[in-house]
C-alpha cells in the first residue's frame, strides 16, 4: 500500500510540469511532446488478456506499440506506471454528455396544437448533436474522470431529438473530436405537452406516419430523379429525409429505453417498421429478457442502479407487513443490480450507457453488478470492445492494440479492485490526470434561494417551468409557474432540511382543487426529485439554477 502511494507520488512529481500544461487546466499550454511511453505497467489489451510489466507507446494520438520489449523513442514523455494497470478507454454507449437541455427558449404558444411546427413537437430528426455540444461543459470532464474516453452523444428533446455522434471526450470542439457523425437516429418515446403528439399513443402513431411518409417521398424522389420530365416536382422535406438512412437500413435508431414499457414500445416500432434498433440505458430490461433477446435489438444497459437499502437500527421492531415490503424492495434492487449478469447468462451481448448515472457511481455500481454475478471480463467488454463493435468502430477503439486510437486508462490497481483509483486518462493521446474530488458537504442546509428552471415528465408528456424561492432570515417562501400557462402559484409548507427541500401547491383541476406535493434533493446548482399530484401519480422532476 505504502509503496503504491509512493509510486503514484513519484509519478505525480514526474508529471508535475505536464499536469500544468493539460488542456483542461487554466493555462492552455501544449505538452512538450505528443509521444508518451507508459512503462512498467500491467496492460490489459482486451478483456481476458494481460501483459505484465509492459510498455504502451503512444504517438500522435495513436497506439504505436504494446508489449514487453518496446523501444522508447527519445522524445517520449515517460509515464512510469510500475504496479499500475492500463486499460482501453471506456466507451459510453450513449448519453447527453456535454449537451445542455435548452431551457432558455420560451416555448411559443401554438395556434393549432393539433398541427404544430415539427420542431415545436419535438420532431427534429435532422438536427445534429454536434451543433449542441459545449466542449468545456463540466459533465465531459466528470465522465472522463471515470475512465470514459468516448461517448455516443445524443441531443436533448422529445420524440426525435436528432442525430447522434461518437465523440472523443477531449474537451475540444465537436468537429475536432468527432470519430463518427450521424451514428444513430435518436428517439425518446415521449410526447410534447400541449401539442401533437403529446402521449405515447400519439408518438407511436406519429412515428409510423412519418416513416411511411418518408418511404413514400423517398420513392417518389427516386422516380423523379430517374426521369423528372412530366412529373410534379417533389418538395424537399428535411424532416422526412432524415429517415432515409433508417429506411435503407444504413442507420440504427437509438431509443431511450429505461423502463420495461419504454423498451417494449421501441421493440414494437422495430417490428412494425423493420428498424435496426439500439435499446439505450436499460434499467428494467430484466423482466423481459427473452423478448429482448428474441428481438435481436442491440442493448446498452444502464450504469445507473437503485441505491441499496439502508440498514436500520430498529429492524427487529418492524411489523410483519413492513418486513415483507422491505423484502420485496430488496428483491427489486437485487434484480436491477443483477440485470447485467442475467443478460450475460442469457447470452445477450451488451454495452453500457452512462446517460443517467452519476459519474461517481460508475465504479461502485459496476462492483455491485460483479458482486451479483457479472464477470469482470464481461463488464470490461461492455465498457470497451462491445460498444466499439456496436458502433462499428472496432478497428479504432476498444482495445490496447497497435494502430488504435490512444484512448487509455491508467489505474493504480486492477480496475475492479475495491480501492482502485483511476489516475490518468488518455484521450487520443492527450493526457488527463484524475484528481480526487473533495466530498460534498452534507451537513449544511442547501442554498435553495433564487430562481430555478425545472422539468417534469408525466404520462401526458414533459413539462417545465420556473420555481422561485425566497429566504428571509430562514423563512422560506416561493412561487412556482409553468412556462405554458405562465400561471404563478404560491407554494406552501416549504421545508429545507440538509440537501432536501419539500413544498406543496394547489392547482385547479376542472373546477376542483388538487394538491401537488414536491420533494427534491439539491446538489449545487441542480435539483432532482419528484412531484405527486394526488391520484394522478408521481412524476420525476429535475431542474437547474438560473444564471444570475
Amino acid at each position, binding site marked *: 500500500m505504502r509503496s503504491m502511494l509512493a509510486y503514484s507520488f513519484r509519478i505525480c512529481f514526474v508529471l508535475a510540469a505536464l499536469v500544468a500544461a493539460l488542456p483542461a487546466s487554466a493555462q492552455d499550454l501544449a505538452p512538450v511532446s505528443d509521444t508518451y511511453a507508459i512503462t512498467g505497467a500491467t496492460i490489459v489489451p482486451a478483456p481476458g488478456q494481460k501483459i505484465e510489466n509492459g510498455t504502451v507507446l503512444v504517438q500522435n494520438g495513436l497506439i504505436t506499440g504494446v508489449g514487453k520489449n518496446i523501444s522508447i523513442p527519445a522524445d517520449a514523455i515517460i509515464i512510469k506506471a510500475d504496479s499500475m494497470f492500463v486499460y482501453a478507454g471506456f466507451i459510453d454507449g450513449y448519453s447527453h454528455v456535454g449537451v445542455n437541455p435548452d431551457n432558455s427558449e420560451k416555448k411559443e404558444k401554438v395556434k393549432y396544437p393539433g398541427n404544430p411546427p415539427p420542431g415545436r413537437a419535438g420532431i427534429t430528426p435532422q438536427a445534429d448533436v454536434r451543433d449542441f455540444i459545449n466542449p468545456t461543459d463540466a459533465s465531459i470532464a466528470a465522465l472522463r474522470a471515470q475512465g470514459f474516453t468516448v461517448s455516443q452523444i445524443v441531443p436533448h428533446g422529445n420524440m426525435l431529438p436528432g442525430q447522434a455522434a461518437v465523440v472523443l471526450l477531449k474537451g475540444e470542439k465537436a468537429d475536432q473530436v468527432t470519430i463518427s457523425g450521424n451514428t444513430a437516429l435518436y428517439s425518446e418515446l415521449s410526447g410534447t405537452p400541449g401539442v401533437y403528439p403529446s402521449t405515447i399513443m400519439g408518438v407511436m402513431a406519429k412515428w409510423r406516419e412519418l416513416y411511411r411518409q418518408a418511404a413514400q417521398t423517398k420513392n417518389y424522389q427516386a422516380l423523379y430523379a430517374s426521369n423528372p420530365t412530366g412529373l410534379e416536382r417533389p418538395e424537399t422535406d428535411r424532416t422526412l429525409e432524415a429517415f432515409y438512412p433508417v429506411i435503407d437500413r444504413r442507420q440504427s435508431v437509438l431509443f431511450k429505453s429505461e423502463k420495461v414499457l419504454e423498451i417494449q414500445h421501441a421493440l414494437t416500432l422495430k417490428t412494425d417498421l423493420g428498424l435496426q434498433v439500439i435499446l439505450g440505458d436499460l434499467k428494467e430490461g430484466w423482466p423481459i429478457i427473452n423478448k429482448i433477446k428474441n428481438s435481436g435489438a442491440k442493448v446498452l444497459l444502464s450504469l445507473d442502479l437503485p441505491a441499496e437499502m439502508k440498514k436500520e437500527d430498529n429492524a427487529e421492531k418492524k411489523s410483519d407487513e413492513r418486513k415483507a415490503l422491505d423484502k420485496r424492495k430488496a428483491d427489486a434492487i437485487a434484480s436491477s443490480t443483477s440485470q447485467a449478469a442475467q443478460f450475460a447468462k442469457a447470452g445477450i451481448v451488451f454495452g453500457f450507457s452512462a446517460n443517467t448515472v452519476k459519474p461517481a457511481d460508475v465504479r461502485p455500481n459496476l462492483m455491485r453488478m460483479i458482486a451479483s454475478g457479472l464477470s469482470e471480463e464481461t463488464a470490461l467488454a461492455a465498457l470497451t470492445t462491445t460498444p466499439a463493435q456496436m458502433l462499428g468502430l472496432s478497428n479504432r477503439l476498444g482495445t490496447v492494440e497497435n494502430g488504435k486510437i490512444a484512448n487509455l486508462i491508467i489505474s493504480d490497481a486492477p480496475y475492479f479492485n475495491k480501492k482502485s483509483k483511476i489516475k490518468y486518462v488518455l484521450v487520443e493521446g492527450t493526457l488527463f490526470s484524475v484528481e480526487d474530488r473533495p466530498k460534498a458537504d452534507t451537513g449544511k442546509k442547501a442554498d435553495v434561494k433564487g430562481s430555478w428552471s425545472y422539468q417534469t415528465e408525466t404520462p401526458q408528456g414533459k413539462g417545465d417551468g420556473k420555481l422561485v424561492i425566497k429566504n428571509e432570515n430562514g423563512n422560506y417562501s416561493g412561487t412556482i409557474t409553468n412556462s405554458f400557462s405562465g400561471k404563478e402559484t404560491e407554494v406552501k409548507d416549504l421545508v429545507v432540511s440538509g440537501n432536501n427541500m419539500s413544498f406543496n401547491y394547489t392547482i385547479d383541476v376542472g373546477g376542483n382543487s388538487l394538491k401537488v406535493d414536491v420533494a427534491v434533493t439539491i446538489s449545487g446548482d441542480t435539483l432532482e*426529485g419528484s412531484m405527486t399530484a394526488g391520484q394522478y401519480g408521481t412524476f420525476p422532476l429535475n431542474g437547474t439554477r438560473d444564471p444570475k
Partner: protein
Amino acid sequence: MKNRFHIVLGAITTIVIGLIWQTEAQSPKGKTGTFALTNATIETITKGTIANGTVILKGGKIVEVGTSVAIPSDAEVIDCNGLKIYPGMIDGGTTVGLSEVGSDKKTQDFNEAGEVVPQVKALTAVNPNSAVIPVTRVSGVTTVIAKPDGGLFPGTAALINLFGYTPDQMYAGFEGVVMNFPNTGRRGFFDRRSDDEIKKAAEKSLKKLDEVWDKAVQYHKLDSAMKGKGLDYYPEMEALLPVVRGERMLMIEVNAAKDIQAVLKWVADRKIRKVALTGVTEGWRVADEIAKAKIPVITGPVIAIPTRDYDRYDQIYANPGLMKKAGVKVAIRTAGTENVRNLPYHAGFAAAYGMSKEDALRAITIEPAEILGVNDKLGSVEKGKNATLIVCDGDPMETKTQIKYVFIDGWMVPMVSRQTLLYDEFLKREPGVSKN
C-alpha cells in the same frame, strides 16, 4: 328461489307504484298525522326483531311498538304484511345540499375561503330544494351530516333530516366543528425525507394547529373569567369555544395510519372530550390504538380503492369490520353528495367482507346516532323516538330491496324524485319513434 320471489314482488310493486304516480299529481306532497304500520316485521336494531308487529306514529314520534298494540281511531293504517320496518338510515358525512352539480363551482357551498373558519355553518347553506334530497330519501337514507370541507377548520357541520323547507325544519339535533388533520406522514412515493425530517415537518404543520387550539383554550379561560361578557368579537374562537368546553363535537378528518396515530396523541394531550374521527380509511392498521383511545369513528367510503398499491384488494371493504372487531365504535358514511343513496351498500360491502350484518346495519343507524348524541331521537325503532323510519320489502342493505315508505319526523314522504318521474315519463315515451 328467493331471488325470483323478490323480483316478482319488486315488479308488482313497481307497477303498483307506477299506477299511483300516474293517477296522482306530478308533485305529491308529504303528509303527517297518525299512522299505524301493521303486520310488519320490525327490526328495532336496539331491541331485536318483532314479528308481525305494529308501529304507531303520532305527533312526529313513535308512540307504540309491539305485537299487541291498539290502533288509534284516527290512524291511517298501512298494512305492512310481508314488509319490514327499519329506522331511517343515517349518513355521518356528506355534502348533500351543499353541492348541486359537481363540476360547477357556482353550485358548490362547502368550501369557504380561509384555513380557519369554524364559524361558517353548513346548516344555513343547505339547499332544502336540492334535487339530491328526494333522490336520497326515497332510498331510505333519512338523515345526513352536511359537512364543510377544505382548510384546517372548514366550518361547522350539521345533521339534517332530508325533509323540510327551512333549516329549522331540517335540523336533526347535532352540530359539530370539522377539522382536517394535517398530513404528518410521508406525503407520497417521492418523499425522500428522513424520519427525522418528517418528524420536524409534521411538528411544523401541527404547530399551526396547536396555535389555533391554544388560542381557543386561552379564549375559553378568559371568557370563563369574564363570565361570558366583555370579550371582543372573535367569531373563530366563539365557534371553537363549545368544542374546548366539551359541549360540541370535534369531527376530525384523518385517513393515513400515521396521521391517525398522531391524532390520537394530539387529542389525548389536550384532553379533548368530544371527538369523532372521520374517514379513517387506514383505521385497520391502527385499530387497537383507536379502540384503546375510545374515540368513535365515522368511516367511509367503504366502496373505494385501497389506499396503497400493495394493500390487499379488499382491504378497504374489510376496514369497518376490522375496526369493529378491535373494539372501535364504528359508523359508516359515503362521503358523497349525489349518491348518498348508496349508504346501505357501503354497509353491505362491509358486511360482505367481514363485518356482521347486524353490526353493518347498526353502523348506519344507531351507531351514528349514538356518536352524534341523537340516539334519544334517532337510530332505532323505539317508543318515544322520532318517527323517522322506513318500510321496505327486505334487508335494506340488499341491492334489490325496494323501499316502500319513508317517514321523517312523522312526515310520510312522497316516494317520488326527479329520477322516478323521468322513469315514469320515459319508460314508454309518447310519442315513440314516429309522431303520428
